[in-house]
């Protein structure tokens, strides 16, 4: 049914439809409204679930780790410094192969302190072993949150649903909220074969020496790789129920014969798509919306890049001392192609800097001037830099 909802409220409702057993969270902007709304649903008796208010994000992550290991469908949400404080536990959750779902309301990280949107927080834990799925609008965030539980429980891997802080979490827009029947028909009750059970004792996350550590980590890598078809299937099956897909591993839009493409993740894709539609037909580019950042869909990306001469990677984070993260990964992923496109790489919109409609044209022009292998921050303002950095 269609509703006009704030993103956070929509996610709270979508998570509630998945019938979590335990939700633990600590408030942090811009994530707070999500768990606030979930706690209200619990308080109003609309959701039967153990809501655990904790004293830090470290504890929030620890609670959902324990709850999941005990066989309960578990959910948390955080942002920015919260994700960083959780980091140790996030690696544990993935290493123990616990199917926790969390929402990352993407926000910049300190210092300097900044509460606004970019992707530096989820990027920082990209190697934690979590699946990371990015959403371009609130409908995708709803649908991806529901799919996340199925993906997590089938793959025994935790899933982080990344949605842009403020830009999605605080935006009211029209969304189709699935019915309880639709979600119930899609998501069976959680049964976890590795759950901690005194009748069948089992240890999780214990000390592993050099004899087996490599194999344990390799298995985690393989599990992520094997999650690729699960992510696609989860989206395809959801589309059969509600009539819309959330973007599989990635999607490609724009003219079929275009030889330039722009690749991005998250809500900026929406703005790029509209800007692209406003360009004259022969100037239009392909827009590649990367939904699955982890696992990284190398093969699907190579397919999407067939026939391209130029691929412009636009990202909302970077690695100081290197340059683009997504751009570097895309370059590596495409190196195996027969005729890989030239990859240009730009970061934009750090710490909530607005990404206006003019960005696409600016990007296409800036790409022409970038040397192969280059990287730049597209919207850096030289006059705001100290003279030595200009």
């Amino acid at each position, binding site marked *: 049914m269609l509703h006009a909802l704030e993103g956070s409220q929509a996610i709270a409702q979508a998570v509630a439809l998945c019938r979590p057993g335990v939700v633990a969270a600590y408030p942090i902007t811009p994530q707070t409204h999500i768990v606030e709304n979930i706690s209200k649903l619990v308080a109003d008796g609309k959701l039967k679930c153990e809501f655990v208010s904790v004293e830090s994000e470290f504890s929030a992550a620890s609670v959902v780790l324990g709850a999941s290991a005990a066989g309960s469908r578990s959910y948390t949400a955080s942002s920015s410094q919260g994700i960083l404080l959780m980091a140790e536990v996030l690696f544990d959750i993935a290493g123990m192969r616990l199917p926790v779902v969390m929402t990352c309301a993407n926000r910049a990280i300190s210092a300097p302190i900044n509460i606004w949107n970019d992707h530096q927080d989820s990027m920082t834990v990209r190697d934690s072993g979590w699946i990371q799925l990015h959403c371009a609008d609130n409908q995708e965030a709803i649908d991806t949150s529901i799919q996340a539980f199925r993906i997590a429980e089938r793959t025994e891997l935790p899933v982080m649903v990344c949605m842009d802080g403020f830009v999605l979490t605080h935006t*009211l827009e029209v969304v189709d909220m699935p019915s309880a029947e639709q979600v119930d028909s899609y998501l069976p009750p959680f049964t976890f074969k590795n759950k901690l059970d005194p009748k069948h004792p089992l240890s999780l996350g214990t000390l592993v020496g050099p004899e087996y550590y490599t194999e344990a980590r390799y298995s985690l890598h393989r599990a992520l790789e094997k999650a690729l078809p699960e992510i696609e299937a989860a989206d395809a099956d959801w589309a059969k129920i509600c009539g819309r897909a959330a973007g599989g591993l990635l999607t490609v839009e724009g003219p079929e014969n275009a030889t330039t493409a722009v690749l991005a993740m998250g809500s900026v894709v929406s703005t790029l798509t509209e800007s692209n539609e406003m360009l004259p037909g022969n100037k239009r580019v392909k827009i590649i919306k990367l939904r699955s950042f982890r696992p990284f869909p190398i093969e699907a990306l190579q397919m999407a890049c067939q026939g391209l001469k130029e691929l412009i990677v636009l990202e909302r984070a970077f690695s100081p001392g290197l340059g683009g993260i997504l751009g570097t990964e895309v370059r590596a992923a495409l190196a195996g192609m027969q005729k890989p496109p030239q990859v240009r790489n730009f970061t934009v919109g750090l710490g909530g800097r607005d990404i206006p409609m003019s960005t696409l044209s600016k990007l296409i022009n800036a790409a022409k001037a970038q040397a192969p292998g280059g990287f730049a921050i597209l919207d850096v303002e030289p006059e705001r830099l100290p003279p030595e950095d200009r």
Partner: protein
Amino acid sequence: MIEIRIHGRGGQGNVVAAYVLAGAAFEEGMRCQAFPNFGAERRGAPVVAFVRIAEKPILRRCQVEAPGFLIIQDESLLHIPSVLEGLKDKGGVLVNSLKSSEELTKEYGRPMIALAGSQMAQEIVGRPLANVALLSAFLTLSAILPLEALKKALSKRFKGEVLEKNLKLIDEVGAHVSAGQWKKEAKHVACA
């Protein structure tokens, strides 16, 4: 698509105004988008919220740079140069002020419509929050949505006495501005 920017101060219900206006569009079967641009989140600090209303799904998610209409919850905000920035040529400005429209127009050198929103809200609702009064005035002037849609959106957010009094406020305000005065403007500022 019509783009609206609402300027206020922390505590004046700026975000609620944006959400309710978008909600009213939804009640009329339109597509809508409303979001705040938070600065420092404290009472009294200038805050901005954006609303987009369209027939088709809205893709762009950037801030509204060239609004068709400005709704200003506090006249003192007009002293901030960026408040009027980007307003479309024939765009309309609605200001919560005790001055007359003529006085404001003269003072700021461009057409503006004044509404004593805080005063009316104080009298009818018992709190000097101008947001609902301004929305009622805006919809009456522009005629982009019926007041019924605003009432429906409001009744999804509030109930009881607060709702009743605000519904009364909506009707009362409607009689204080000239219905359809911005009809032409609304057509003119609409973008694809």
